[in-house]
């Protein structure tokens, strides 16, 4: 689809307006959209970062207005929080659309994030899956299950004085134990 204004470029921005139940469609290329923007209602680009974290409020220091600062002096910047792991700052959160720089940012920016999380999510605490908790389908859980089955079988065989069969089961148990131990030693990155 070509741009409605220049009729040359591919339209990449599609605006649908519904006014009094009538649908109006405008298709623009990025260039013409940029030119057209100031004419319309311009509330600036939507910034997820600012919406999520109320950044405009946070980055201004929460201090009562001080009369001697009236002459357009920039307010002393609020103590700038920097993530020690990745160097991320509030400004970076803002310019990257609300994204954090690394897992440690959750600790570095915790107060700000906690407020945002309760706006976005139903709860504040993770109730879902945890790493290496759900092992029913993986090999090691099956091995453990097999081990406990074999141990029961061994008891039964010993009780029945079936020592030859018991020896075979004992060897399988030892073999299993080795395999389980080997599995645990698999290095985790």
């Amino acid at each position, binding site marked *: 689809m070509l741009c409605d204004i220049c009729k040359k470029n591919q339209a990449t921005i599609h605006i649908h307006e519904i006014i009094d139940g009538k649908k109006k469609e405008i298709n623009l290329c990025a260039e013409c959209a940029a030119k057209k923007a100031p004419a319309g209602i311009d509330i600036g680009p939507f910034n997820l970062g600012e919406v999520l974290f109320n950044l405009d409020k946070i980055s201004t220091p929460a201090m009562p207005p001080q009369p001697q600062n009236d002459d357009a002096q920039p307010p002393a910047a609020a103590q700038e929080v920097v993530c020690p792991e990745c160097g991320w700052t509030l400004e970076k959160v803002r310019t990257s659309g609300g994204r954090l720089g690394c*897992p440690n940012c959750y600790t570095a920016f915790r107060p700000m994030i906690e407020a945002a999380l309760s706006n976005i999510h139903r709860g504040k605490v*993770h*109730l*879902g*899956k945890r790493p*290496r908790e759900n*092992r029913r389908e993986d090999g090691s859980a099956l091995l453990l299950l097999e081990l406990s089955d074999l141990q029961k079988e061994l008891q039964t065989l010993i009780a029945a004085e079936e020592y030859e069969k018991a020896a075979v089961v004992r060897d399988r148990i030892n073999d299993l134990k080795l395999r389980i131990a080997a599995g645990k030693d*698999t290095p985790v990155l």
Partner: protein
Amino acid sequence: MNRIDVLLKNRVSFLTDSKSSDDIAISSRVRLARNLARFPFPVAANDATLTEIRDLVCGGMERCGALGRNFLLFDMEETTPIDRAVLFERRLVSKELLERKIGAALLCGKDEAVAAMVNEEDHLRLQSIVPGFRLEEAYRQVASLNDALENVLEFAFDDTLGYLTSCPTNVGTGIRASVMLHLPALVLTGEINAAVRGIGKLNLAVRGIFGEGTDNRGNLFQVSNQSTLGESELQIIHSLDNVIKQLILHEKNARNLLLDKNPNMLLDKVGRAYGILRHAYKLSGEEALNALSFMRIGVDLGMFSNVDIATVNELFINIGDAHLQKKENRAAKSADELDAMRAAMVRERLRA
């Protein structure tokens, strides 16, 4: 054989294995966002780190074996624009992944039911798509991919906040469950606006078919959860399930209402759509999508003896610009030529 050709030979299970009961919910998808512990998220990582992350993930995928031994790796640095567009049309990669290049990759099994995007917004976006309305099945598939990967990779996890993601909107479970719904009757009766508003109030999102920022072409809508923290994955899926069941009922009611009150209007739309698809020599993507949407109602209503739902569903993908050019093995020189190619392909498929 080129890796993309392996995919193009696939039947696209999430569309073609549909049963006739899958009339309104086309497909269910579950995605999990994961990141490697001790690495910066992609937005803050430099090229060398991005490459390192990609190699770690690819190595892990190979060792865990969850995608089978011969899984496909598409390195976005090397994938041609047309092949990348094919991956996008098949819903295997997002626009965001295509915009990134360094370290960005797609890993998927040969049947493409389960896939992993590497270095999109997060290090890993695991996804599973199944036909019809079967969110729990999609979740089980993607969860088992997650479990296999967790044997060989350590994901960033916090006791209170759960899985840590680049954007706090995904933190916790990292889950985004969505169902693609075909809701033409709700659109025709105008009830869709109220439905969309209602869904918004339930903290769920409604989007067009190709994800964020796309409109509702083809009367196709994607309904997904928004909240990812404070509930378990299955709780999230079950409450989404309930809302979608309601939507499906509403759509069925709206179809019955239309058939009852104004059958000729509905039948006329189906018939005209079929006429266009069967006989047009130029079809734009949007016209094709909208006509397919109405033809699909006709199939749902049993109006066509020779066309099944899988054929129509498959056309939804095959009318894509990239799929058309890939099939013809040539690039279209103009939009006109592309529209002609599209019309020819659709005529051919519906001729049988």
